[in-house]
């Protein structure tokens, strides 16, 4: 029964996202596929693409020990420091964003039913209140997950070696510094084939879009 409900919810979620608007949509993303792809890139000596796909796999499966282990390994091999995860981040990413989306919907249902029951002045007031409280917690968990994931949705990974960071979004702009491959940066803006990036150290500049891949592909 439980599996049946879960499958139905999953099918509904997929149906809601089904219509492909991009070529990539026809193929789709899966945590296992992205993880295996990242492994393949790592074996080919492409740490940038490997880190990119590990991070994408981590979005779909945030608590996979294999993804975390390989991501750390590739970063260490490339001498790129790994970001530390806060306790808040670990707590709110207890489940995948997909599951948390449905948890949020269930929380909304609980809050709504509780509010209706209160309006109808049904009996079992403590059950009504418990249901509303549980629903609010579930919605809060989903919202917190969104807050935690928001920066990651705007991150990019350097996929080419010695990527020059320029002062302006033009190919002949003066180079400020050079980014190592597999470094993760925050993407602040985009302008005509160039991305305005910020490193973890706070340095900013423009890089060619072909040198940095977004963790969440742009449509």
């Amino acid at each position: 029964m439980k599996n049946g409900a879960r499958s139905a919810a999953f099918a509904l979620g997929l149906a809601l996202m089904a219509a492909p608007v991009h070529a990539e949509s026809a193929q789709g993303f899966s945590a296992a596929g992205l993880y295996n792809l990242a492994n393949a890139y790592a074996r080919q000596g492409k740490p940038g693409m490997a880190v990119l796909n590990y991070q994408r796999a981590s979005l779909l499966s945030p608590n996979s020990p294999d993804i975390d282990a390989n991501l750390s390994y590739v970063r260490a091999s490339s001498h790129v420091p790994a970001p530390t995860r806060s306790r808040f981040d670990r707590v709110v990413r207890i489940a995948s964003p997909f599951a948390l989306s449905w948890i949020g919907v269930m929380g909304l249902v609980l809050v709504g039913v509780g509010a209706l029951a209160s309006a109808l002045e049904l009996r079992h007031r403590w059950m009504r209140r418990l249901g509303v409280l549980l629903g609010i917690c579930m919605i809060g968990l989903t919202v917190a997950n969104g807050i935690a994931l928001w920066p990651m949705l705007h991150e990019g990974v350097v996929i080419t070696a010695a990527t020059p960071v320029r002062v302006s979004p033009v190919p002949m702009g003066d180079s400020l510094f050079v980014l190592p491959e597999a470094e993760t940066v925050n993407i602040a803006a985009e302008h005509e084939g160039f991305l305005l990036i910020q490193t973890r150290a706070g340095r900013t500049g423009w890089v060619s879009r072909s040198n940095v891949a977004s963790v969440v592909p742009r449509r």
Partner: protein
Amino acid sequence: MSTRRTHGRWLMAIAGMVLALATPAIADDPLVYATIQPPQIMLGESAMFTITNLGDGTAPITMPVVSGLKFEIVARTRQIELINGTTLPSYATVVRVTPQMAGIFTIPGVTPKSQPVVLQVNSLPGSGGALRPGSPQAPKPPPILAGGSIPKGVRLTEDGSAYVRMSVPKREVYVGESVPFEIEVGMRSGFVTRIGLPKLTGDEITLNSSLLREPERSETMVDGQAFVVLTWHSALLVVKPGSFPLSAVVPLTVKIRTRPRRESALDDQFGDPFWQNFFGASVPKDIDVESPPQELKVMELPAAGRPADFHGAIGTFAIESDISPVKAEVGDPLTLRMRVVGSGTFDRVDSAMLDHVEQWKTYPPKSTFTSNDPMGHKGEKVFEQPLIASKPGIQTLPALSFSYFDPIAKRYETAHSPPLSVTISPSLADSTQMAPQLAGNAAPTSADKSADGLKPDHAPSDISMSSLIPLYLQPRFLALPSLLALAFAAAWVGVRRRKNPAERVAARDRTAWRATKRALAQMEAAARADNPALFFNSARAGLQQALAARWQLVPDEVTAAEVQARLSDDDDIHQVFAFADESRYSGRDLDSTDFARWMRVVRQRLISTQSR
């Protein structure tokens, strides 16, 4: 004392032995060095350049050759020098160095190991106050050169000390055309002490900056006399049409003879400034030497057939183009180059390269010029334009063109380069389609050293998503909780509305009860104040509120007539309304008993009305 002297002798003996042992090393390696004294002289003076050879004198010595300096060996000496207690033979060659112009000269080393020396030659100061030829005080000096043949195009000054010659390859040019030319200044050795930059006559002519460069130096014989020749190469450009006389003027400071020719026969015999300076036979004088004028005809560029992209380049040019790299990914910057090679006005060689090309992002080009001659007339100008392809596939860039005016053919020409093809592959940054292929082909091998520490692959999953954006941020999914929220809100509002009539009645009753309490309080206050009018007015207002709530009327609609109609059997309420009207116009006295009675009556009626 004796002991100290003995120790001193021993020390001297030891030092002598050490020096004796060290000496062969010096003797084995002959030392050749050169000195010049004084290192700074005035033009017209001479310096002594001494080459000393500490050795057997067999080391080869090369006599230096410096343009603008004249070297003459005046003596060779042999000496014995005592170095570190050892006697060494030394051979000295004394050379007289006579400058032919002012400047700083570096005399190279006489052997590969010896150091160069520097001689500074200053021009003569105060030449402005020199005697002028032709002034009554100064006798006219005899010409230095007399008779003999002079090369073609050379017109010597009156005293034969210098000449200026200008060479222009063509006499008919176009407005804006760059014409190379050459200015040659010949100066008789030792007679010119200062020379300024040459300039051209005429305001219509502009020169490029190559005239500021150092001129070429050479020596030549003119009519049997040694001349130092300085040659400037430059290019001129005429800005308006017409015919102009063209000549070059060079300011010089020359030394003119102040003694009669017969008294300076020895000077002329040697032609040597050393002797002239020694005897004080000459003074400096500023003169302008001009080349023979030449006629230059300047024509307008024809208006007919002028291409739209003509920017004023005149000359003979050819172009070629290339792009690098020829294989790239989407988003990679490529560099498109156009090389313009030839001769002419490279300042006006310009190109916008490619402006708007479908599926390409273009940037403004930048250019660099490399000259093949000192004038900048011949060379190569390279335009580099960054391009970024926006779509994958085999892309063809259109041909580049460049328009110019050919002064030889006397018409406009447009040079074209062939179209260029580039292979653009999809960018890795955008590609996720390679996942199955790569993952399928990426079985770990022993050669993959980087994969040693990787966790193994996972079993493929059937579950896949169309986007990595979390479901709760996707608009299509957000419709579901939005609809749910709307449905719950609508249901809640519906429930509340269904409960509304009873609530409305209760609210009305609460309002009426509050009005009743307020009216009773006012009545009590009026009774205490012994105010019958206020008492009955308050009683009537309270009854109006209560009855209006009961009859669902506005309180003002509850009048005495309405009460009469609806409550015909209740005399007390009638009387309250009547007393209220009556007390407004006529003072009615009530005692405390009456107040208490009416208070009890009204309270009873109000409470009974509320409870219904």
